[in-house]
């Protein structure tokens, strides 16, 4: 069972790595947010896979459900923020956000 768990760990690490790369290198605000989503996928995968390997799927499952709810609230708020800042700066470029002048 622990060998199978390493496969899940590798997949989750790949997801988190890809998401971190997106956060570090991209400039489009929506693309950055897709990177956050990819990291969140990796985290929920490793939560559930660890629960499965330790034979406590039920607790892991309830944690994953909580995590998904939090993720949805985060996405709704952040996309509303992106729409508002885009109206303000007239661009989706994250570098234009460094001028936080009114």
């Amino acid at each position, binding site marked *: 069972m622990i060998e199978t768990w390493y496969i899940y760990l590798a*997949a989750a690490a790949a997801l988190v790595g890809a998401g971190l790369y997106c956060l570090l290198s991209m400039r489009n605000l*929506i693309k950055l947010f*897709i990177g956050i989503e990819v990291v969140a996928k990796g985290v929920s995968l490793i939560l559930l896979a660890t629960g499965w390997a330790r034979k406590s799927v039920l607790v892991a499952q309830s944690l994953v459900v909580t995590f998904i709810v939090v993720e949805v609230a985060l*996405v709704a708020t952040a996309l*509303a923020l992106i729409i508002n800042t885009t109206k303000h700066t007239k661009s*989706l470029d994250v570098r234009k956000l460094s001028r936080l002048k009114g």
Partner: protein
Amino acid sequence: MILQITLLVGLVLFSVLAILAKDLIKSAICLAVSSLLLGVVFFRLGAPYAGVFEISVVAGLITVLFILTIALTKAEGDVRESKLARIAFPLFFVVFALIDALVMKGLLEKIPLLEAAPEAGSFSDVLWRERTFDLVGQLAVILAGVFAVLALFRKRDNHD
């Protein structure tokens, strides 16, 4: 086992495509497909409720929200990403995987395993009796999200 590995490879592949795709709509759809695959992985790990949540909420609702945002911000034009970002991705990925494979196993051996009691009861017992505090937290987070969206989209007052 082979099916599971195929699902995981597809999940990573579609997530990477979502990051590297030039068109934002395409990358939102790739994200939805990878959520779908993650939901199937959850089903096969014996967690049907998490799978249902992943497929209906993340693959459905979040994709709709993303596409709505892309449509609303389309007038502002595209952002030019640096070309280096796409070229350097495989290099970063390989280096990350190497460091991960070297460091992770040593780290994991240092962490002691907690005693895990075998679980009894059903999912609803665990969710509603043992994790009641989580449900309160979920309610608080949902309310905070609703009020944040309301506050962000309110009409401007006259004296502004």
